[in-house]
């Protein structure tokens, strides 16, 4: 089986197995810091990353019944010349494991593809997203905090040579929602030889 097919298969198996643990109550919005009653959000992201890079991208999160949410995001990382630009797209799912009134925990699984020059990479990050939501005074305002450690299984290819690697990474962030406006920032760090990090800000709208 090719590396790409193997990783897609693995991702599907993980999503199906994870769904066995999912409760069917509220939406899986809390674990990513969103407003519990919203259907999801759409946002633009921009920030900085390791190696003097700048990042720009976008993301969509959509909540379904049965404690399931799907998300997709894409970004472009621009490095100073002569280094090439890095492009990344990811699709994934979050499944609610636990949800309280203001606290939620989800397991997340995604499939990522990345390209930088002749480097092609596929990765499967498997995370545990924890979110805490605090309502603020006033109408429809709240602030959410998130923490998501994840384990990443990856496969990279340069021309006909390839290499597999696994590493641990994590992100922490904050989201502020006022009516339908969503603002936030997030810091992500990989704990491997690349020690890649990025900090992004996001601005978007929630779906009601």
């Amino acid at each position, binding site marked *: 089986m090719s*590396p790409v097919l*193997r*990783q897609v298969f*693995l991702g599907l*198996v*993980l999503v199906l*197995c994870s769904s*066995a643990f999912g409760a069917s109550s509220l939406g899986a919005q809390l674990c990513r810091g969103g407003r519990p009653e919203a259907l999801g959000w759409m946002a633009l992201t921009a920030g900085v990353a*390791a*190696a003097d890079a700048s990042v720009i991208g976008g993301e969509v999160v959509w909540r379904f019944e049965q404690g399931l949410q799907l998300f997709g995001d894409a970004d472009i990382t621009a*490095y100073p010349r*002569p*280094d*090439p630009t*890095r492009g990344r797209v990811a699709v994934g799912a979050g499944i609610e494991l636990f949800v309280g009134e203001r606290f939620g925990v989800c397991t997340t699984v995604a499939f990522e593809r*990345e390209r*930088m*020059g*002749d*480097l092609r*990479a596929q990765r499967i990050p498997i995370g545990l997203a924890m979110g805490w939501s605090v309502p603020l005074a006033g109408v429809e305002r709240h602030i959410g905090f998130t923490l998501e450690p994840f384990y990443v*299984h990856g*496969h*990279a*290819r*340069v*021309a*006909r*040579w*390839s*290499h*597999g*690697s*696994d590493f641990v990474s994590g992100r922490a962030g904050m989201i502020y929602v006022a009516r339908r406006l969503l603002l936030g920032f997030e810091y992500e760090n*990989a704990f491997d*030889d*690349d020690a*890649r990090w990025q900090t992004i800000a996001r601005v978007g709208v929630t779906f009601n």
Partner: protein
Amino acid sequence: MRRVGVLVLLFAATACSDRSIVAPESYGRRPCRPSADLVAMVDLVPFTPEAMRSALRHGADEMTRAVSVEPRQRDVQDAMRLAADDIGIGHYDSACRFVGIAFGALRALPDSAGSYPDRDGIRLILALTAHALSAEMQR
């Protein structure tokens, strides 16, 4: 619990089944920088990367013939050719990755006394190319 066990076994099997034995640094997610070991082999005013293209091609076509047998020999040849091609079109990040792969494949070749002169020559070409790329990328 049985499902969890199957899941863990499946994941472990997949995660452990795909390892490169040469040059893992060539697959990094950050922009490539030549290996410090390779750059440190030479200490001189660097050539331009373009000045190394003929030497890379000569290394790929002539010098590797005496070095060893397939398939590592082909890895060295192909990676050096691709490095020369990428330097020609200004893709230094890719050239850097191919230099790393060629050096890793060269190190993995079996020893044979008759091949030492050519191996040393190829190593020198790769070191000079890494030195040139390193200087160009720091500008």
